[in-house]
Structure formats: C-alpha cells, structure tokens
C-alpha cells in the first residue's frame, strides 16, 4: 500500500523540489502533506495518517531536532519514522538526530536519482 509522506521544510521552494523529486524518482507514495516547521508538523501528525516524515533541521519556531524530541514524547506519533533532508549534515547534528530516532539523512543539494536510491526502500 502506498505510503503517505509529510514534508517539513520552512522553504516552500524546497517542499516543491522534494515533492517533484519523489515523483521523478518514480516512487509509489500516497498523499504528500506539507508543514513549514516542527510545530505545524506535530499538529498535522496528530490529525492525519502519515507513514513517513521527511524533515529539514534548520527551521524557525521549532527546528528538526526539537521536533524529533517533542514527537518522541507523544505516544500516538512517536513511532512514525523520520528521515532528515538538510544542509546540516555534520556528524554531531546527524548523530543527535539519530539518537532522537531519525532513521537517516540526505544532504541538500540532491538529485532525483539520489532521492530514489535513498528513499526508495523506505517509501
């Protein structure tokens, strides 16, 4: 069954690019939901059926690390997998994200081929 995806990024351009890359990669997904920061994402996760989250790190209001921490405290949504897509791919930050439950990370910039290779097995 096709999975529903939530994209979290404060850049509407980047949300469109990731969405386009998912389509170009030929991945079989259901709905694509969008949120501009971690706070919006938490509300959306509580109200929609989302199977996987693709999240930026550097965002206003609630960044990707804070989102992972807060999501982990909410039993109803804590097990939804989160994959980081960010310019922030330093070992310390990605290490912290993985400690908080992130299942992987993809660095911006990326190609549709890279999206397919990395996210294909997850979606």
């Amino acid at each position: 069954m096709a999975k529903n995806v939530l994209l979290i990024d404060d850049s509407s351009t980047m949300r469109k690019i990731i969405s386009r890359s998912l389509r170009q990669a030929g991945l079989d997904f259901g709905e694509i939901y969008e949120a501009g920061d971690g706070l919006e994402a938490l509300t959306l996760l509580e109200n929609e059926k989302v199977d996987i989250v693709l999240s930026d790190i550097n965002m206003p209001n609630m960044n990707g690390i804070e989102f992972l921490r807060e999501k982990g405290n909410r039993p109803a949504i804590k097990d939804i997998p989160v994959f980081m897509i960010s310019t922030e791919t330093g070992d310390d930050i990605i290490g912290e994200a993985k400690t908080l439950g992130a299942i992987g990370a993809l660095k911006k910039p990326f190609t549709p081929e890279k999206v397919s290779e990395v996210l294909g097995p997850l979606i």
Partner: protein
Amino acid sequence: MNSFAEISDKLIESTIEIFTSMVMMDISSAGESVEITRTLKKSITGTVGLAGTHKGVLAVHFPNEVALAVTSNFLGMDIGEINEDVQDAIGEVANMLGGNLKTILSDRGRDIQLSLPSTICGDEYTFSSQAESDRIVLPFHSPSGIFYVEVELEG
C-alpha cells in the same frame, strides 16, 4: 583552518553542484574573486549568517533577471516578477551554500551555527561589509547573466 583559496575552490564546486542538481541550470565560474559595487541595483541578495568558531556571512547576489530565471528553473514554472517565491528560492540557494560552507569550515557541525536565510531586494540597496572581515566575491556565468557568491569571515 582552510585558506581562502581552498574555500574559493570548494565554493565554486558547491555552487555548480547546487545549480546542476537542484536548479537544473548549467553555470560556470567566471574567474577569481572580484571587487563589486556595494550598491546593488534591481537585484536580490540572499544571506546566511555564521556564528561560533567562524563568524561571518555568506551572500548570493542576483540581478533580477537572473533571479527570475533561477526561480523559474527551480520551480519548473515561469515566474515573471520578484515575489515571495523568488525570495524563498534565493534564500534557499543561500541556505544550501551556507550549509556547504559550514561543511568546508568544519565537518563536525556543532561548532558553527547557521542563521535562517534572509533576502534583500529592491531597485537600489547597499550591502555593507565588515571592515575587519576577509572577503571573497566569486562571479558565475548563467544563461541569464552574471551572479555573485560572496563570503565574509572575521579575521
């Protein structure tokens, strides 16, 4: 600490990679660091600040016609005026370049913090630099004209 020559080479590589893979636009380096006027006309500038072990700013300066072409390519649709989409796209170019600059300066991640991107645009504005900073301004050719990537780091 990387030398400015090393930073220049890696930034050129990063800029071309971002435009090739994300903007879907072929660009090329237009040579070594140049001096540009501090007063920009009919342009848009995206900036990201760096704090921590390296302090400074990364800026990308696009004449309006280049910014429109970049955004149109980025989004896969024609954009005819400087609007929120253009500001968002140029901010994201600065953001990705800022992330790459951070990786060039430090591969760990916690010792340098990036600000959120911001943009400045208008018929005429001045982009001031810090007197104490080292600065490089790298020119690039795009199909729509020249644009610049600037890095200032406190010495």
